Each structure stands twice: as structure tokens, then as C-alpha cells.
């Protein structure tokens, strides 16, 4: 994350297809050179549309997109110098791998020798030297993905866009390719805008993640902030898993708020987007932060719950509980000597530290933008 902020800027970008509903409502984002930014969200949330507007395949309804301070909205896609990895790779089936990689350089009228050298360099970079003269149809999914990646990088574009590039691969290959993309990103230092609906992918790869929902960026932050301090209930729910306890705000300080839960317990949580006394709120706690009282002593918040069932996952065990008002709670406990044995319907106290929980909006309330 270099010093010159705003290498790429989206300023109040809006997009509508039918002149009635906005697919993207007021998108603002500043990206530094070399940054790896992920647009994460459910399908139909507007993330791919933003990518297409940046690539020049969709018009911007209103707002501006600037690269290096220069407006790009009136530049045709073939003059934007932005690399792109397509969802289905979009390799040219009638060209060999070598011809596919050489294509952007040929268009840029580079001398033949320079093209050959560059193609060889990038073939080596993605470890496909032996496949140079094959056709895309003769390669496996992972190999095609690597060709697509090399083709998007070979002409040294300012920005590389990736539209769910790993969606078509199986889990193992996907993890391998995540690593590969990260390696190339660190090695070559290009700027990436990555679109995915896979939160694990987003968390492991990105410098920052912009979480989209209904055409609005819900939160844009580094992965650990997004996970540990979600700005609203949608983010808390979409990224990872959350236990949600409903209550009402009783008191507000600088950093924290006091919440009276619906079963009567008083707990403290980090201040987020619910800050008014009397306001209904949802206290969200990650399942791995919620734990058994004996492990935390009396330092944190406590809530009484009834044990329902447990699932043996392998590296950890999931315990399911229900509070008096029926809210379901999940505890993830490492599968070690600390894992307790519980009887069905046994009532125990669960605890967590105030700084590990957020007071977020209640789903009934409209989502503040």
C-alpha cells in the first residue's frame, strides 16, 4: 500500500439498467497502487457491474471513475489498458497458448523478438513452458486459469480485474490458485480488483475488502477489521458466522455500550452502528469467541443457555445452545482436553469478552447506508 492514495477512484458511481432501479447506488472507493482489493457480496449485489464499468463493458449512469486522476468513463475498453481474468477464462480456442499470450503484444505492435521473449517469461512464470503449443481445449481447468492469468498480466496493465476467476475450479485447485495469484501479485506488484462471493477467498487474499449488498458498499476494510469489527449486521452475518442476541441499548460510553438482553441479562459490547439509548440492537459474537464460563472466569459478559446438541467437526467441536427466549447460540471449541462433555438440556453459563462483541442494528430496522 504505497503512499499515493487514489491511484484508482470511484466517485459517486451509480448504475441503472432500466432507469428505475439502481444496481449500484453511490459507489465510492479509493485504491492505492499495488493494492489487492476484493469486492465481496452475494450475487446480484452490484459487484460485477462495478468491475464491468471499470473495464469499459458497461456505461456509468452517473459519477466518475478516475485512474491516475484521469477520467476513464469516455475511453473505450480497448484503450483502457486494464487486464482482465474472465470467469470462464475466455481463452481464444483457435489460438495456441503461445498465440493467446502473444495477442495483446501483437496488437501493441511490439517487435517479434520482444514478444517471444515476453511470452517465454510469462510461460515460465505460470509454469506452463511445456504447453506453449497446445490449444486451450487440451489443458485442464487449472492450467487454463493460469494461462488466463498470464494473458491478463503480460501487457503490464495498470490494473488487473478478476471476475470470480476461481469459481469453476474444485476446492483443492482453488486454494492452490489463490496462493499462485498472491505470489504473482507480490512478485509483480500490480493492482488487483477481485470479485468473488467466496468469503474465505476474500479474507485470505485481500489487502482490503469491500462488502457489497443491494448496490451499496456495507463496509470497506482490511480482512481482520471486517471480521473482528463488522460495521453492521449484514457484514457480521455474511463474513463468517455470528451469534445474535437481541436487546435494547441502556447506556453509551466512548467505546462501548450496555445492552439489556431480552432475557434480562445486562452485557457490554463495542459501539458500532447502534448508539442511541433505548434503540433496539443485536449483539453479535463469533462462535469461537463465545466460550464456557470456567475458561473466562467472571471477566466478561454472561448468558444462561441450555445445551442442545454438539457436532464433531474434527479440528473443533460445535456446541449448539438455546437461551430462555429461544435464541440459538453456537460455540466452537478446539477439539482438545478443554472440550467439555455436556448432557442434553443441561443449563450452563456462556461467556465472552465485551471487546469481542458488537452492538449492531436489528434486522427489523432499515439498514442505514
Amino acid at each position, binding site marked *: 500500500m504505497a503512499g499515493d492514495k487514489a491511484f484508482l477512484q470511484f466517485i459517486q458511481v451509480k448504475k441503472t439498467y432500466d432507469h428505475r432501479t439502481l444496481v449500484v447506488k453511490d459507489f465510492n472507493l479509493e485504491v492505492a497502487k499495488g493494492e489487492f482489493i476484493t469486492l465481496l457480496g452475494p450475487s446480484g449485489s452490484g459487484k460485477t457491474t462495478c468491475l464491468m464499468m471499470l473495464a469499459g463493458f458497461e456505461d456509468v449512469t452517473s459519477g466518475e471513475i478516475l485512474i491516475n486522476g484521469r477520467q476513464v468513463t469516455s475511453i473505450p475498453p480497448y484503450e483502457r489498458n486494464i487486464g482482465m481474468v474472465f470467469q*470462464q477464462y475466455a481463452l*481464444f480456442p483457435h489460438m495456441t497458448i503461445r498465440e493467446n499470450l502473444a*495477442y*495483446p503484444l501483437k*496488437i*501493441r505492435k511490439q517487435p517479434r523478438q520482444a514478444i517471444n521473449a515476453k511470452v517465454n517469461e510469462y510461460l515460465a512464470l505460470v509454469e506452463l513452458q511445456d504447453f506453449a503449443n497446445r490449444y*486451450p481445449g*487440451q489443458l485442464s*481447468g487449472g492450467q487454463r486459469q493460469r494461462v488466463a492469468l498470464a*494473458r491478463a498480466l503480460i501487457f503490464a496493465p495498470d490494473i488487473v480485474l478478476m471476475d470470480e476467476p476461481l469459481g469453476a475450479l474444485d476446492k483443492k485447485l482453488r486454494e492452490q490458485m489463490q496462493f499462485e495469484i498472491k505470489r504473482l501479485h507480490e512478485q509483480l506488484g500490480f493492482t488487483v480488483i477481485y470479485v468473488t462471493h467466496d468469503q474465505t477467498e476474500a479474507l485470505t487474499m485481500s489487502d482490503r475488502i469491500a462488502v457489497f449488498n443491494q448496490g451499496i458498499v456495507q463496509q470497506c476494510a482490511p480482512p481482520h477489521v471486517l471480521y473482528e469489527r463488522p460495521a453492521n449486521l449484514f457484514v457480521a452475518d455474511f463474513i463468517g458466522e455470528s451469534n445474535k442476541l437481541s436487546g435494547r441499548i441502556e447506556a453509551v460510553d466512548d467505546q462501548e455500550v450496555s445492552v439489556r438482553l431480552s432475557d434480562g441479562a445486562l452485557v457490554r459490547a463495542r459501539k458500532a452502528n447502534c448508539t442511541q439509548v433505548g434503540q433496539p440492537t443485536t449483539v453479535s459474537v463469533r462462535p469461537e469467541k463465545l466460550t464456557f464460563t470456567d475458561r473466562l472466569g467472571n471477566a466478561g459478559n454472561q448468558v444462561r443457555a441450555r445445551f442442545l446438541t454438539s457436532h464433531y467437526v474434527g479440528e473443533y467441536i460445535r456446541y449448539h445452545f438455546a437461551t430462555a427466549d429461544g435464541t440459538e447460540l453456537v460455540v466452537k471449541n478446539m477439539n482438545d482436553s478443554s472440550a467439555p462433555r455436556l448432557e442434553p438440556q443441561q443449563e450452563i453459563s456462556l461467556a465472552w469478552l465485551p471487546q469481542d462483541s458488537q452492538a449492531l442494528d436489528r434486522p427489523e430496522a432499515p439498514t442505514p447506508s
Partner: protein
Amino acid sequence: MNSTPAYYGFWQRLGRLLLKLGSWLVLLFLILPILVIVPLSFNSEPFFSFTEGMLTLQPEAYSLRWYQEVFTDPRWILAIKNSFIIGIFATLLSTVLGTCAAVGLAREEMPLRRFITALLLSPMIVPLIITAAGMFFFYSDFGLAGTYPGVIIAHAALGTPFVIITVTATLVGFDYSLVRAALNLGATPLRAFFDVIMPLIRPGVISGALFAFITSFDEVVVILFMAGPQQRTIPRQMFSGLREQINPSILAVATLLILTSIALLVTLELLRRRAERLRLAPAE
């Protein structure tokens, strides 16, 4: 190959045999009138029937004189030249127009695409005599009747639907993200068309062109209306040959036409196989 299911009884076996026999008879019925022309064209006598010498396979009964006549008679030579000139230019015109139309009509956002498609395909559906008569009156107003450009344009209009159909077929399921990829890599839309779309639809373009050529090559109705004496094509010359000078040189020309058609059909089949291979090659 000829395996009959073991549970077939006598009558079923007999039925199957009759079906096979019937099928062969139908095939023979279709092909015989064409095949019979070939030996007759080698007749050494100016008759349209098998002479005794031919039936007894006497070498003198056969000759190439009618072929010689075709290639020396200035009327036939003009007709052959005309057929190729008109056929080739009409094919070029219909291939360019038909390919452009098909590529445009394949786009979902194209307004009125069904209507326009129907309009462009209408020469295939409207009776030829009506098209021909309409063309004659329309082209006369522009002084195009009885000229090479007039005949070429008329034949191009007849050939274009074939190109549209074959190119549209190759565009079914075309992956337009390939075009986006080309644009993204820096190709202008025109360059993307020639580098990416064209190589992938080429089999359709070529087979459409062959169909357009055959259409022009075989066409006689429009020629009867539109062509002056200078634009007589092979079919037109055969037509008048039947009425004026009855001799087997028509049969020699017919044999040559059959050979041309077979050559074109074989080319089409080879192209189709190639297209199938290309279609299988890209994944998914």
C-alpha cells in the same frame, strides 16, 4: 450390422427384408434419372437413347464428341464463363452481406431481429417466379435488367439466406466473452471481429458461400427474366438447347454439372467435420 433381434419370427424377418428392399427402390428412383444421363453423354450418335452398340458395349458406340462440342461451341463457352462470373460475384456479395447480417442478428439486443430475419430469408420462401418477376420490373426501372450487375445482385439476394442460416448456426452458443477479452487486450471492435469471431465462424461462412454458389449456378428462373443474350448461363443455355438444337451436348454439360455439385457437397461435408472438431476442442 444386419443383426436381427433373436426374438423376431418369420413374418417379422420378412417384413424387415421388404422394408430394406423398399428403401433401396426409393433411393434408386431418386438417383436413376440423374445417373442415366452420364453414360448417355458419351453416346457417339446424336440420340437421347441407348443405341444397340452402347448396350452391347461396343467401343465405337462411345465417344467424347459432345464434350468436344461443348468446349468448342462459342455459345456454350460464353454460358460457362457467365455462370462462373455471375456465380463468383454473387457468392462474394451474399457471403459478405449474409455474414454481417447473421453476426448482427445473433445479438440479443438487436431490435426487431425476428422480423428482420424473416425479411432476409423471404427469398427462400416466396415462389421463385414471383421474386423473379418482381425483380425484373424493379430492376428495369434502374436499368439493371439485362446487365451483369443486375443478374449478380439478383443472385446475391437468392444466396444471402443460405449464408445467414449457416453462419447463424455456427453462432449458436458463441461465447461473447471472447470478444470482450479481445477488446480488453486492446483490439478494436473491427480487429476483434477478424481475429476472434471470424476464425470461429469460418466453417459456417464457407459452407454458406458454397450454398450461395450452387444456388446461382443452378438458377434458371431469375435468369430467364433478368438476363439478356449476353448473360446466358449454363442452365439458361441448356433450357434453350432443349428447344432449339436437340443433341446430347446438353447431357455432357449435365454430367459436368453433376460432378461440380458432388465436388461441392464433398467440400461441405469435410468442412462440417472440421467444424465439429473445432467445436469439441474448446472446453465446456
